[in-house]
């Protein structure tokens, strides 16, 4: 119990990623959908940081910074889009935009 290996952290990252994926597929609120993508980002970030630590270099930490940048950009754009969509239909239901299926 006192010793930890890379696998422990990878398992936590995998579990967080899968939970975020399930939430993305099941929830119908647009805001929660984007919250679930942030959850998936968390799992990826834990993976990268643990690889950085167990390999003794800083590449993983550098990539987590890029993940944070993309997450911030995605959050601002996505929430702007959500506000726009909410103004047009008055609902946050993702099914209100069914005609957008490609």
């Amino acid at each position, binding site marked *: 119990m006192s010793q930890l290996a890379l696998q422990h952290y990878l398992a936590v990252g995998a579990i967080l990623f899968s939970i975020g994926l399930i939430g993305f597929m099941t929830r119908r609120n647009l805001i929660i959908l984007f919250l679930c993508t942030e959850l998936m980002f968390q799992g990826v970030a834990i993976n990268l940081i643990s690889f950085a630590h167990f390999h003794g270099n800083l590449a993983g930490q550098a990539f987590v910074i890029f993940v944070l940048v993309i997450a911030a950009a995605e959050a601002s754009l996505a929430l702007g889009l959500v506000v726009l969509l909410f103004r047009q239909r008055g609902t946050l239901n993702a*099914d209100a935009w069914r005609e957008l299926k490609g």
Partner: protein
Amino acid sequence: MTGLLLPETLPAFVASFHVLGVAPVLAPTIILVLCAIAGIGTVLLLPSKREGATRAVGGVILLTAGLIFAALLVRAGAEFIQAPGTGMGVYFWIFSAIAVVSAVRVITHPRPVYSALYFVLTVFASAGLFVLLWAEFMAVALVLIYAGAILVTYVFVIMLASQAAVTTDKTGALAGLADYDTTSREPVAAAAVGFALMGLLLFVVFDRAQTVDPVPATPALQGTVQDLGHYFFQYHLISFELAGLILTISMVGAIVISRRRVATATGLLTDDVQPDVVHAPATPIEDNPHSIPVQGTENPRQKAYPET
């Protein structure tokens, strides 16, 4: 150019993957069974029209699966650690339990504000894990950016967009919530796919044939801001500048996307937009002296506040 961007340790990193040819630490059947049990629990726990008791049963099932998995990991832990890993195992278990439980609550709580707050809890627990991995700067950055900036934006948008949401008049725990918050889309299929992915990932992680040789880290060099800055400007200079560019572009894009175009009091539009683009549901307050009639809508009673 690519040679410049790659760290010098990459060949050693690639060479550190080696095949041992022994059985995986956790048997695939155990992982599969646990994932199936957790999937059933998640289906019961996801927002739906069921009563609270059924959801509580789902929570208990999910919690049991998680505890069994953790216990198996603890028991098998001594076997697959060849080199001394990091210490502080107790904190790892606490932080990861908080992270996973609150992540489950994020996707199962019917109220969006609570989901966002549970996500903050996940972020704090992840920051704790980062500190255990000697990544203090990343932990601070995570708390500042996620819990400080992104989540505040989320909560703000939830407040903004949930005001006029059509609610079904219910009593009990789901009172005042919109229909799309209290029901899930295809919970069984989504849980099956998600937990199949989780089982596969866990199988690969604990497959001893793919074990990565742990390189003992030097904690004194790890995670200090100075080293990270050196690393950035040595190997990722262009990417670093591009990241700033992406942030700027997304900020401009967010403003352009969510800008509301309203008519002015004199009947002229504020800029060169055509009247047919004004179809925002404006604030329907008739007797507010500051409200302005919106042009281009079919409802003549629609009015808006002047915004720039």
